[in-house]
């Protein structure tokens, strides 16, 4: 029996000598990977003015795309982004083969790791941030285009050589201008009958149209370019494929032979219209016939963010109040907010004031008013009105003290004159 088994085994050994395994590649794998790395490094470093990077963080691309700039020299990478074009940061990068051929940014680069830092409140929240990548698989690389895939998000990131004769900062200025000219809604009629609406959402559009009689909505993400906007992925509506939109002089977009007509709601103002000095008038009680007080106030935009700071509301305290621009309505939102922390850790809050119960003694929650234009007057006149989210209407704001967690009330702040701690019937006229 054993003899038979042994003969069968020896036959198997003979079979292994059949020369069917032809070499597919003329070089061993290690050598080919080494060559691929050298080739990628050469392509990356050859671009003396760097690369324009269409960077999309987060695996569903819900924040849209951001223009980044990479330049590679030696072991260092220089990175800048449209978030802060004035800053360009140098850090160490590596090309290696841990998962295919990869570019890894291995030391901290503020401009790049802004999109992945879990310790900031931008994007999602503490612990998450924008959830972007800093390690990338090189999917394709040629001197005219590099396609990366984020290791964590699997997002597709495209890099193109940046022209020699343009500064990164100038490109960002053009992008910023296009962004400021974006309108909250676009509509287009396709095939003479299908009306398609494009509603702004942060970093993308919500597209609404009818398909086979049913209402369809979908969200798509885009990145700003120096000509308009470009979709993360092309999408199809009513038989037309959209991938890029070119901004026209009248704020309309041209794409795929169609014109998307900008729609502006009656009281809508662009973000650029708000900055400036205003004469503010207000009351201090929930009665329109009360004494009117007048103040000089200033609205300042915080960098390129959606946030504005209002100063001059309480001159003796020199504290500012934050307002947020909402693109959809073109208005500013004022939520109640802590504005100062006392030495004993209690908070001084700019608290929403309930018109019916006269107090809203809880400084938590996004309750407040919106600041809107009347749609007619120039110079601009703004009125603070109820935001409508809270069951009772909000008639104004007052200074209110709570414990550090905002949950326990201490009481009204009374150390300043009444007109610097209570505001109702607020109106602002641009000077």
């Amino acid at each position, binding site marked *: 029996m054993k003899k038979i088994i*042994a003969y069968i085994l020896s036959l198997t*050994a003979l079979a292994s*000598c059949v020369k069917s395994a032809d070499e597919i590649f003329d070089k061993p794998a290690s050598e080919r990977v080494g060559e691929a790395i050298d080739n990628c490094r050469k392509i990356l470093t050859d671009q003396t003015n760097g690369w324009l990077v269409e960077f999309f963080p987060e695996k569903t691309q819900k924040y849209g795309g951001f223009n980044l700039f990479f330049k590679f020299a030696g072991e260092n990478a220089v990175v800048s982004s449209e978030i802060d074009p004035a800053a360009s940061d140098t850090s*160490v990068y590596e090309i290696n083969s841990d998962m295919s051929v990869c570019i890894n940014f291995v030391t*901290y680069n503020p401009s790049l790791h802004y999109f*992945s830092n879990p310790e900031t409140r931008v994007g999602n929240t*503490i612990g998450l941030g924008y*959830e972007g990548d*800093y*390690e990338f698989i090189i999917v394709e690389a040629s001197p005219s285009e590099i396609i990366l895939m984020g290791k964590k998000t699997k997002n597709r990131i495209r890099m193109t050589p940046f022209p020699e004769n343009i500064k990164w900062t100038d490109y960002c200025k053009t992008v910023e201008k296009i962004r400021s000219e974006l309108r909250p809604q676009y509509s287009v009629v396709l095939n003479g009958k299908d009306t398609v609406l494009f509603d702004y959402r942060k970093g993308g559009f919500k597209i609404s149209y009818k398909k086979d009689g049913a209402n369809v909505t979908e969200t798509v993400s885009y990145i700003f370019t120096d000509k308009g906007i470009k979709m993360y992925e092309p999408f199809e509506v009513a038989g037309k494929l959209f991938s890029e939109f070119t901004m026209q002089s009248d704020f309309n977009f041209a794409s795929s032979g169609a014109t998307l007509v900008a729609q502006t709601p009656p009281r809508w103002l662009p973000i650029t219209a708000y900055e400036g000095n205003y004469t503010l008038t207000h009351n201090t009680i929930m009665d329109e016939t009360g004494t009117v007080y007048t103040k000089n106030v200033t609205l300042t935009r915080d960098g390129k963010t959606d946030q504005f700071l209002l100063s001059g509301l309480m001159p003796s305290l020199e504290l500012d109040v934050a307002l947020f621009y909402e693109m959809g309505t073109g208005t500013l939102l004022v939520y109640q907010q802590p504005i100062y922390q006392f030495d004993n850790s209690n908070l001084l809050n700019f608290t929403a004031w309930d018109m019916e119960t006269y107090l809203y003694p809880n400084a938590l929650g996004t309750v407040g008013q919106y600041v809107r234009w009347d749609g007619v007057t120039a110079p601009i006149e703004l009125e603070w009105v109820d935001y409508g989210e809270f069951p009772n209407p909000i008639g104004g704001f007052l200074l209110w003290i709570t414990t550090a967690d905002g949950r326990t009330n201490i009481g009204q702040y009374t150390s300043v004159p009444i007109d610097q701690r209570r505001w109702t019937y607020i109106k602002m006229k641009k000077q």
Partner: protein
Amino acid sequence: MKKIFYTPVLLLTVFVLASCEKDEPDYNRSIFDTSTPELNSFDKWLRDNYTTPYNIVVKYKLHDVETDFAYNVIPADLTKSKQMAFLLKYLWIDAYQEVAGDGIHFVRANAPRLMHYLGSAEYDNETMRLGVAEGGTKITITEVNHLIPKDIIKQNFFNTIHHEFGHILNQTIDIPADFRTITPASYAPTTWYNRDEYEAARLGFVSQYAGKLPEEDFVEVLARYITRTPEEWQATLDLAGDEGSAIILRKLEKVRSYMKTSWKIDLETLKSVIQRRSQEIQFMDFDNLGF
């Protein structure tokens, strides 16, 4: 029977040998990259100050593929990494080397083999994970980007490195059994963070975290005692009150005799050396470390 069996096996062996004849490996081509990597000035400094003398690798570059993708983390800043590497050597390795009887050999034998720097804390969504010592071979230093060199003695890094090194010593020679019996009923392995500093001190713990387990308690007594100034240590005793401070001092004596008998290190000398070095760093220029 045996004879009959071996004959075919021998035959088989001949065939197997023959089948490999034409498949000579190419000894001139290695599948490993054997070229010498290019070292920058910091890499050279690390080689000369950590790797060659102590066989410690300091990994300041982040290769996320080696960490868990479920965690959100960013790399350490290069300048902060240099400052951190310099400071940890000065306030920890050099201090032990100065005090331990057999100096460099003590550090060589007991130092972790790998130190890993991360720029931020590690987050699993919104939960934060701080640095850990893994099996005595690896210490992860998180939040390197928050380092302020001259304030390091007030930052967590200073206590953390002495805390983690204490664990490594304990993994070689266990903590004395009679340390575990000083406050056996007061440890709260899962709810220690519900006590504040005051409550912990009253129970005889030098910090909140010391109240977790005897092993943590032991290294907290060690780390806090040597890293705190005499005034700060006194403040801890004052906070603990008569009963609490008596317990803390009993624990301190156990730590003192452990260091002496197990490691031939005099705790007072170690403390004074670390305190002196903490003062000396105030006069250093961390913007021009020279590497």
